[in-house]
Structures are given as structure tokens and as C-alpha cells.
């Protein structure tokens, strides 16, 4: 289990290697990579700035990572989130989950992303071709995505 907030890029292959090196108890590894898209609401964007809340960010990422390990039998996990100035096509976020079974790895990775999107204190600002920068608005779909895990809690799963 580890989390990292960084201005630098990450190397997905190298991170999987670190997580799985020398281990034979892992059967399934899922990675999710989020990247900067070159368009927002149909308009081109030239860059994205990511602000965060140092200290709270790491605490929130650790908290949701623990929550994932409490819900699924995971052999390992990693959350890396970049901050600062990014260009279209660049990496933003990496989540890796490793488990003996594929369903646990898939579900835990989706869970981590859903929680991260609604509770980790990051904010995106996009700059368009005209140089105007606008804060990205939160999507209702992200709240909806998170709610499905809440239902599971209520069901005692």
C-alpha cells in the first residue's frame, strides 16, 4: 500500500514491477490511468493545472486505500496523483490493485477511482486556446458512481 502526490510523471510498467517483484501470490493486476484530454465541452484546451491540499490529500488517499483493503482481499495497491501544470495527453492519475482474483482487483480499482474523484482534495483548471482558464466543475456522474459503494455499505457487504 502506498500513495504519492507528485509533479513528475509515473512509469506504469515500473510501478507494476515494484508491486509484484518476487511474488507468486498475485494472480490479477489492474491499473487505471487517467490522462489529460485535449478537449473540454467541445473546446480545445492547451493545458491543465492541478491544485491540491497538501497534507489532507495524502491523508485522504491513505484513508480510501485502507478502505479498499478492508473491502477486498488485495495483495497490494498504489495511488499516484500528479499536481501542477499538465498538457493534453499527459498522465494525471495512476491506480494499481493486485489480488489473487480478477474480480477483486477490478472492483477495488474502480472503487479507488470513484472515491478519489469525490473525496481527494484536487481541483483542475483548464486553459483554452484564448488563454482563459476555467475551473472544472464537479460531475454529478462522479457522485452517482460513488453512491453505488455506499449502498454496499448499507447492505452490510
Amino acid at each position, binding site marked *: 500500500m502506498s500513495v504519492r502526490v507528485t509533479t513528475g510523471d509515473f512509469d506504469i510498467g515500473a510501478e507494476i514491477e515494484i508491486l509484484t517483484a518476487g511474488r507468486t501470490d498475485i494472480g490479477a493486476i489492474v491499473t487505471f490511468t*487517467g490522462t489529460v484530454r485535449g478537449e473540454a465541452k467541445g473546446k480545445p484546451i492547451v493545458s491543465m493545472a*492541478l*491544485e*491540491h*491540499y497538501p*497534507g*489532507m490529500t495524502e*491523508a485522504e488517499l491513505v484513508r480510501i486505500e485502507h478502505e479498499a483493503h478492508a473491502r477486498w482481499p488485495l495483495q497490494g495497491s498504489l495511488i499516484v*496523483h500528479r499536481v501542477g501544470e499538465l498538457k493534453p495527453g499527459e498522465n*494525471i*492519475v495512476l491506480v494499481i490493485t493486485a489480488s489473487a482474483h480478477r474480480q477483486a482487483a477490478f472492483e477495488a480499482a474502480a472503487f479507488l*477511482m470513484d472515491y*478519489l*474523484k*469525490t*473525496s*481527494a*482534495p*484536487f*481541483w*483542475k*483548471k483548464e486553459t483554452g486556446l484564448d488563454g482563459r482558464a476555467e*475551473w*472544472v*466543475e*464537479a460531475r454529478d456522474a*462522479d457522485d452517482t458512481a460513488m453512491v453505488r459503494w455506499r449502498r454496499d455499505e448499507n447492505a452490510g457487504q
Partner: protein
Amino acid sequence: MGAGDETKMVTLRYFAWVREKIGRAEERVAVPSEVRTVGELVGWLQTCGPEYAEAFARAQVIRVALDQKHVKPAALIAGAREIAFFPPVTGG
């Protein structure tokens, strides 16, 4: 920002457009003792000047963290060292 007879000093932090509207990222303020909850604190901040009034105009979209933990408007602020205000998060 005014300080009454009975006040407590607390660090306020602002992020994203809340920070931009208020014009600073952080400040130490004296909160009047009758301000007990996070919701009341937002209400009080709205009265602290036009930049605060604008930043907190849509109070229902402002998220609050008390000592770096998400809290609801009803949360008591007593004992908090650091209170942060920000829009809904958009990372990932």
C-alpha cells in the same frame, strides 16, 4: 477581520476558486465565540467583506474540512486548528 471580547484564533485555508475570490490562500482569524458550527462559520464569513460575500455566495456548494477531514455544516468547530474551504473536488 474583527475580533470580539471572546474569540478564538484559527487558521482558515482556501482552495481553487474560493482562494481566488478571497484573494489569499490562508489567514489567521479571530472567530467570535457565538460561531459554533461550520455552517455558522460560513454565514459569518459572508459578512466579512465583499470578497468573502462573493466567495461564499453559493454556500451550498462550498465544502469544508476541519483539521484536514471532510465535515458537514453541522460539525462543531471547537478545538479546530485549521479549517479549509473549497469547491467540490475534481481530481482523478
